[in-house]
């Protein structure tokens, strides 16, 4: 009997360590969904008040002129208040983004402006300036939009409504009135066959996303890739409880002076190290599963409850739940936990107390986080040589590379990364066994440790 009793003891101990279990399982499972809910709440529950002051006096225009403008179609020769129509359109747009928005239109110039988060002032000559048929009278008209700054107004909800107002006004300006004016000007030049777009946008930019293999991909597929990158943050999440466990399991045994008894027993040092490592894997499995569950809820909440586009029809990226990526993520997270434990074990073995183990271990954990952050924005291979050497010595790097390789569809690349990760993990475990077999574990680096 060697390894089995150590695993048994560590698992018993772990199962009663509520704080570590809480950190490992409950937090990853609820933190991300909670974050998503908070984002939704921040957007939807923040009371946003939009006030539109429409000072527009209107203008008499023939129905023919109104036909090309979708939201004015059907209007007959009469006094048209364009400001009011635009105000209604703005309210429609902001209500789509945030149904709880309180929006009011005040026609004319009020004596006092009511309380607002976003204020829009449509000028008196709005209709007259925009609905003129005489090219020599073409001019710009100014709509003022006020964003009330202040702690209570800096919420995501107000910002989104403000942006929606701006986007809607720009859309109306470019798609309807600019086109209309260009058509009139082209007619003056007898160039009726020239499409207005040829004047408005002589250069059209056509975008296309392609994968690293050169294959064309859709925005949805790009969203999938971005989602996979987002998942890299989980590497840090699942690593945190490992530090708590390893610190208690090694430095805690030193503190409680149970380690000497264990080391003097017939169990081999290798079995002591492996037993603690295997128990950390059990913790890792729980953490990885909890993390995946949390992520699924997070992505679902973000995609279904959080408005990501201001105006209907505008392109946007959404986070995507791809079962293969989620499965790979779970597997890689398990490997991450294993390599985190292996990375921390030799370091923690050299500390004298749980407190110092957690301090130094916390610092060491920051190194993989830096790699993850870099990988979020760039390719690890683009690092300077010295940084690249350091990065490739850390097993977590291969977790990032494995996910990258999976996105490229290179399963051989995934296997290579996983094997590299396992080799480094094994090497780190071998170092820990060496430390356990040496006196440093008891005496520390300061060999002047007091003995009686």
């Amino acid at each position, binding site marked *: 009997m060697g390894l089995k009793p150590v695993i048994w003891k560590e698992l018993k101990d772990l199962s009663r360590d509520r704080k570590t279990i809480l950190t490992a399982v409950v937090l990853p499972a609820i933190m991300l969904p909670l974050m998503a809910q908070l984002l939704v709440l921040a957007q939807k529950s923040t009371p946003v008040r939009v006030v539109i002051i429409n000072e527009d006096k209107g203008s008499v225009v023939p129905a023919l002129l109104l036909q090309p403008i979708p939201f004015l179609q059907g209007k007959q020769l009469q006094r048209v208040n364009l400001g009011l129509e635009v105000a209604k359109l703005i309210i429609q747009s902001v209500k789509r983004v945030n149904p709880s928005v309180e929006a009011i239109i005040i026609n004319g110039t009020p004596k006092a402006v009511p309380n607002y988060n976003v204020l829009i002032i449509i000028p008196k000559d709005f209709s007259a300036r925009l609905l003129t048929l005489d090219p020599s009278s073409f001019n710009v008209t100014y709509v003022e939009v006020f964003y009330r700054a202040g702690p209570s107004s800096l919420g995501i909800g107000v910002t989104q409504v403000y942006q929606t107002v701006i986007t809607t006004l720009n859309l109306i300006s470019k798609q309807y009135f600019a086109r209309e004016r260009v058509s009139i000007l082209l007619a003056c030049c007898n160039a009726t066959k020239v499409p207005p777009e040829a004047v408005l946008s002589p250069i059209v930019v056509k975008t296309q996303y392609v994968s690293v293999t050169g294959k064309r991909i859709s925005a949805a597929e790009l969203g999938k890739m971005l989602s996979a990158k987002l998942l890299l943050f989980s590497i840090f999440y699942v690593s945190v409880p490992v530090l708590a466990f390893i610190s208690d399991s090694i430095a805690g045994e030193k503190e409680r002076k149970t380690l000497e008894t264990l080391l003097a027993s*017939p169990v081999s040092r290798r079995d002591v190290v492996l037993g603690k490592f295997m128990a950390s894997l059990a913790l890792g499995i729980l953490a990885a599963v909890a993390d995946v569950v949390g992520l699924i809820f997070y992505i679902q909440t973000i995609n279904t409850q959080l408005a990501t586009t201001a105006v209907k029809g505008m392109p946007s990226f959404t986070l995507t739940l791809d079962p293969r990526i989620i499965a790979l993520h779970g597997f890689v997270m398990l490997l991450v936990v294993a390599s985190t434990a292996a990375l921390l074990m030799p370091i923690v073995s050299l500390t004298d107390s749980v407190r110092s183990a957690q301090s130094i271990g916390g610092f060491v954990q920051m190194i993989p986080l830096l790699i993850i952050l870099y990988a979020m924005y760039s390719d690890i291979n683009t690092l300077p040589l010295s940084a690249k050497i350091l990065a490739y010595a850390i097993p977590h790097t291969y977790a990032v590379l494995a996910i990258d390789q999976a996105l490229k569809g290179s399963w051989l690349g995934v296997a290579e990364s996983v094997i590299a990760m396992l080799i480094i993990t094994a090497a780190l475990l071998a170092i820990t066994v060496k430390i356990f077999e040496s006196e440093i574990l008891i005496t520390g680096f300061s*060999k002047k440790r007091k003995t009686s």
Partner: protein
Amino acid sequence: MSAVEVRDLWRSFGNKVVLKGVSFEVDEGEIFGLIGPNGAGKTTTLRIISTILKPDKGRVIVWGIDVVKEPAKARKIISYLPEESDVYLRLTGYENLKFFAMLYSKDNKEVEEMIEEGIRIADLGDAINRLTKTYSKGMRRRLALARTLMVKPKLAILDEPTSGLDVYSSINVRKVIKEFVKKTGSTVILSSHNMLEVEYLCDRVAFIADGKIISVGTPGELKEAYGAENLEEAFVRAVKEVKGVGA
């Protein structure tokens, strides 16, 4: 052949030489006491015998096994209770015993026998099934002692087994050690600052000061040698003779 032979042990930590040629022998079935002031080298000596530390020079033979050359083999016949060693607080008393029984035994039958012996030695009643974090210090020490002795080691090494315990708990621990040796015939090396305890428990005693053994003998022999009425007085005189310092 002696059960334990400690020959010319030297050990330093950095520039400080802690052991300066410690030598003594322990006979089979004997309770041997190692007595000395703080910093004399007691714990270092016991750690070397229990394979936790290695000497810079010298050797320790336990039943013919060189503990430096064959530590794995030596650990099978040695059981060590370090000074102030605690128990696993998130395990019950029973589980603590089971863990060490599993480490020392070959099969489940042996595990059960060891646990049974451990429960008897610990004598904690129903508390044996409670988490040890609910135990008093005395209960935890009894459990630690039970964990050390239940495996019936050929050599039990006890570093200040009653350190920090109240009078009643100390009496109980001493009783357990005495009964254990009587029942099993095992050999015990213990260190202590309590001269009454040493006099009550030990067949022979070694005085250690400044990393050197200064005197070895039965409590009676030592008292006679230093013309003292009790062991404490003998110890103080012995240390004064060598170092000119009090204990």
